[in-house]
């Protein structure tokens, strides 16, 4: 196929799009919406991942000691804690101090604990973990190990719920893959039908082209370019709309569960490029399937 023919193919593809503009506009709109659903999901996932990652950077943990623990027992626990990679003892909270802080936290309601015959609060070590060489802290493993140490009553870490959240994230990712797969099939189907309609609208011309000696590829290529152009346009449009929506949303700082203030980030460039290439490939594949089924003149 000579290079000389490519301008003809491109002209033909653009002429097809213009003469079937309503069919193409509907196809394009549906493709953009499908890609936008997928992109929005991805944007959400990327941000959730970023937020979870941020929380995981600095893990805090409280190691509660049994009542009546000896000084030696406490020293032993302290030395075990110090031996943990990335761990730092922020402070030791004695039973008395715990009660004082609790009383302060209760404020005007502090009178409620005046009637207690003994101090029910345990002494504890407050630990902070930092990532070592970029490796995430295995909070659950550390908790299990520390709870085995003699004299340790209980271990809590502030991001314990993150583990449960990780499970949720896995579920969201899985749902994302399923939705993405279904949407890809939908997009493929849309392109196939759009191209099929334009092929039917040019059936007479195709027949004549074949009768004057056009090869199958000569007839097929403009339709495939048509599908590719549809993929390019819908991919680009979906990303532009997503970016505009992101700009609007990101002007507001995101508050989540009143725990922290987060920045809203856009999908990474490589993801955006992948979505664009996916859209182009789906356009090409859809038109390829559509033309493949047609040519038996």
């Amino acid at each position, binding site marked *: *196929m*000579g290079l*000389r*023919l490519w301008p*003809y193919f491109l002209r033909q593809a653009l002429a097809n799009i213009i*003469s079937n503009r309503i069919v193409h506009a509907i196809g394009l709109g549906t493709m953009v919406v499908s890609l936008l659903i997928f992109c929005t999901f991805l944007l959400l996932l990327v941000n959730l991942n970023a937020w979870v990652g941020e929380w995981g950077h600095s893990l805090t943990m409280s190691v509660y000691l049994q009542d009546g623990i000896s000084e030696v027992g406490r020293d032993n626990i302290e030395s075990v804690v110090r031996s943990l990679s990335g761990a730092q003892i922020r402070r030791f909270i004695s039973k008395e101090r715990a009660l004082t802080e609790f009383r302060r936290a209760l404020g005007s309601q502090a009178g409620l604990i005046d009637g207690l015959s003994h101090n029910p609060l345990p002494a504890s070590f407050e630990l902070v973990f930092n990532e070592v060489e970029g490796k995430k802290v295995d909070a659950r493993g550390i908790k299990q190990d520390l709870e085995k140490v003699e004299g340790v009553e209980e271990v809590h870490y502030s991001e314990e719920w993150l583990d449960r959240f990780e499970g949720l994230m896995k579920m969201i990712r899985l749902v994302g893959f399923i939705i993405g797969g279904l949407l890809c099939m939908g997009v493929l189907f849309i392109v196939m039908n759009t191209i099929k309609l334009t092929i039917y609208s040019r059936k*007479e*011309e195709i*027949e*004549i*082209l*074949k*009768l*004057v*000696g*056009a*090869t*199958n590829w*000569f007839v097929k290529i403009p339709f495939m370019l048509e599908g590719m152009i549809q993929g390019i346009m819908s991919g680009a449009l979906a990303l532009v709309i997503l970016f505009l929506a992101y700009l609007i949303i990101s002007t507001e700082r995101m508050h989540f569960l009143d725990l922290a203030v987060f920045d809203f980030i856009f999908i990474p460039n490589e993801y955006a490029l992948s979505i664009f290439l996916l859209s182009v490939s789906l356009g090409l594949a859809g038109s390829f399937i559509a033309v493949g089924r047609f040519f038996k003149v």
Partner: protein
Amino acid sequence: MIHLFHLYKNFGPNIALSDVNLRVHEGEFVFISGPSGAGKTTLLRLIFGAERPTSGHILINGINLNRISRLKLDLLRRKIGFVFQDFKLLPAKTVFENVALALEVTGERRSLIRKKTRQSLKLVGLVDKEQAYPLELSGGEQQRVAIARAIVKDPLILLADEPTGNLDPDLTKDIMVLFKSIHMKGATVVIATHSRELLEDTEQGKIFLNRGRIFEEKWD
């Protein structure tokens, strides 16, 4: 050039052609004649590769159409001009574009396509109508556009199905002069017609078909 062996073509229970044997040599000018439904159009379509025979063989320039690949058939069609009875012009394209189409599929340079298309339109006397659309033309003019498209690629074989069917006697004469000039350039010409006048005025080879069979051949 064109060689048919024991050619049969059925459309369901209807027999269109039955045991047709024919040899047309390079550079010959042949008329295929016969009443409507005799099988003339089917015979031309078989030679063009637009239909497959039920049995028998068709050789074009030694190439057996039964064994030819799809791609080779497409390429072979570039050497065969066909004037269809129903013209097969594209209504949304201009006269110029319709004729140029036959060259565009070959991947010729645009300047050459323009030059040859104009030459072809000049030959059929339609150069002043190149920007008109087929539906703006008379039946005879449409016929001439179809002829211009068939000859624009300088075919080795020119097949024409009732090419003068829509023309008045004067135009018929002009078109026949045109076909003869193409023949003089070396093309093999096969014309299917039911026009007795056309056959009376010519000294070319004649083949008479009836009910799908050749029943007479006259070669001058």
